[in-house]
């Protein structure tokens, strides 16, 4: 049997006190995007927090999350292999660009030269060759976003969570970055959950669309 690369949200509901924020039941196939749209304050980001495993205890949540057939709802966030991109790139400011990437490469890749090489290869791929030793704070907004994507991909995630990751970029860059992220997700057969308030994001993503709020 072929390996199941999909993600499944089984009757996930998230509430804040008496208020029901969202109820979702969906299957996301490998390489496809589920878009959750809603205005700011609608609680759409809590869905990603629940999948990623860092939902604030003020919220009550039910339902199960399956990634590659495994129920990950109750396990440590670091064991879920759910890579996430926020609207800020959140590059670790104390590490170099290369240090950020090396941080993400799984530790079972032991050979240091191999680790450095794979970091440099993905930098080339993102048109950031030569930036390995740079201070992330000195990169442009678009460059930071690409390093953040590279970092997440290097961690070999089993799924991708996108929390309005394009909203801070200017219009031209936004389209470019969007294409890049979706292309990589497709190529690596990653199921994606995208949370956004921008209809263009939803349009570009293509797949299922759920509106909340």
């Amino acid at each position, binding site marked *: 049997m072929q390996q199941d690369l999909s993600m499944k949200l089984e009757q996930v509901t998230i509430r804040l006190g008496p208020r029901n924020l969202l109820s979702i039941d969906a299957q996301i196939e490998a390489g496809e995007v589920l878009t959750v749209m809603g205005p700011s304050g609608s609680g759409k980001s809590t869905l990603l*927090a629940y999948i*990623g*495993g*860092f939902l604030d205890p003020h919220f009550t949540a039910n339902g199960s999350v399956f990634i590659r057939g*495994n*129920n*990950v709802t*109750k*396990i*440590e*966030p*670091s*064991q*879920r*292999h*759910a*890579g*996430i991109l*926020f609207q*800020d790139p*959140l590059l*670790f*400011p*104390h590490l*170099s660009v290369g240090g950020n990437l090396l*941080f*993400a490469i*799984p530790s079972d890749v032991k050979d240091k030269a191999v680790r450095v090489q794979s970091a440099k290869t993905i930098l080339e791929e993102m048109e950031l060759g030569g930036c390995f030793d740079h*201070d*992330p*704070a*000195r990169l442009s907004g678009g460059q930071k976003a690409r390093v953040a994507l590279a*970092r*997440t991909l290097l*961690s*070999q*995630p089993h799924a991708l*969570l996108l929390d309005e990751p394009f909203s801070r970029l200017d219009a031209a860059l936004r389209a470019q970055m969007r294409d890049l992220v979706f292309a990589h997700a497709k190529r690596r057969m990653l199921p994606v959950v995208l949370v956004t308030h921008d209809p263009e994001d939803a349009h570009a993503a293509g797949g299922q669309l759920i509106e909340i709020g």
Partner: protein
Amino acid sequence: MNLLRPPEPLFFAARAAPLLIIAIVSLPVLSGLLGTLLPAFGYLPALGGAELSLGPFRRLFAEAGISRSIWLSLWIGFAATLLSTLSAGAIIAAGYGTKSWAILTRFLSPILSVPHAAAAFGLAFIIMPSGFIARLISPELTDWINPPDVLIPNDPYALSLIFGLALKEIPFLLLMLIASVGQVDASRYLNMTSALGYGRLSGFSYIVWPQLYRQIRVAVFAVLAFSASVVDVSLILGPTTPPPLSVTLVRWMNDPDLMYRFVASAGALLQLTLVLFLFAVWLILERLGAYVRNQMAETGRRFASDSILVSIIRLKAWLLALLVLTGIALLGLWSVSQLWQFPDAWPQGLTLAAWARALPSIGGPLWTTFLIGFPAALIATLLCILCLANIQKSASIERVMLTTLSLPLIVPQTAFLFGLQVAAIKSGIGYGYDALILTHLVFVLPYVFLSLSHAWESLDPRYEWMAQGLSASRTKTLLRVRLPLMLRPILTAFAVGFAVSVGLYLPTLLIGAGRLPTITTEAVALASGANRRTIGVYAFLQSVIPFVGFALAFALPAWLFKNRAAMRAV
């Protein structure tokens, strides 16, 4: 499929951290209180007191000058707290949000790190009849050729002492106020009140202050307890015939006649009662103040033209900071001065003679200061990190912990240190370094936790989510993301802990039983009549040592992250 892994060892250990902190702080305070309570009623078999009796209290109240000592303690506690609270409130009301405010707040940490004793000596060198102020204006304005015969400091009404306490308590309360002012959204309320036509001070007092005060209330009670029972500052600036109760108590505690320990314990219990009485008085005052304020607010009087008063308060804030720093500078100047006669404003020459004289005897106490302060600050910092890193903390444990951490600040030191001294010997911990480090931890932990927890919560949590999304374990996330990002606040918390330890007088004196003198106990011992150059050496050194920690907290991150622009902002 079971993906549950065993808990990571570091975090398994971290679960014990909150309980460990609670134990380290509460056990000494509680056992100390008990150890004071029993001898106060005559029970201390080791000294032949086998039966409960009221004898110690009868002897206590028969002591000469005891009633004046009691009144002094009440007066000092009340007056210093009222002065400090009102001043701190006025300063933040007048200054908050202005440009110079940001600069003034930068002076707070260094001023706070100056030990009480050093600040007190500095103040004494400024205000005494032969002090700096008198020298500046003499003989031109005063015709004084000799210093006037006035009893300052050590005046019988304790005014110098009250002022000296306020000098350190105002910055402490200000720091607490600044930590809370962001939470109550002060600037929006101030915009609102000024739009309604209220003056800066009245708008602040009517609307912002009630919310702010609630947040710093524990700190105010700590100031009240501290002022009413302070020993070291009192020995330097306080009245002497008779001194406040706490000073008398310590004298009895060190009396060769061991029977005086019973009287001292009874006195310590009396001290506790006085502080509780002051708390009750303060509670009534709070109600009264709130009532008057609300009555005023309801009249709608706006006090719109308060700009002159605001300027005066701002000026006063700068003067206070200047006073502390001038005091330290004077300590340094005296320590290197040759002949410096009244009314000269500057010594006739500079010399290192006093330092050379002090050097042989200063090395031991200096070493001891580090040997206690460094481990105490390190242990406290590590425990607080483990405690804060443990996300499984429950709300109830957190509440117990915050209450426990305020214990050593609210309970007067004399009330539990006397008993703790007995308990330390009984339990076999004794008088050594271990006992001193443990005792210092009781006072160091609350301040380190306070300093660190604020910074801990202000780090963007998404950095850690991001790391865990990259499959980093909790341990790796802590060690490689959280701790490096927080290097500066962590080192600052360490420096705060070290500064607290360096400044501790009574715990060091009592638990070390005088056998492990530190730079602070030695400096305070000089208060009774040593020459000013020696005092200058010890007190200047005492005020400089804590700076080492803060300098490290500033320099080390700057050097480590010199190529990381964003780390300057974090």
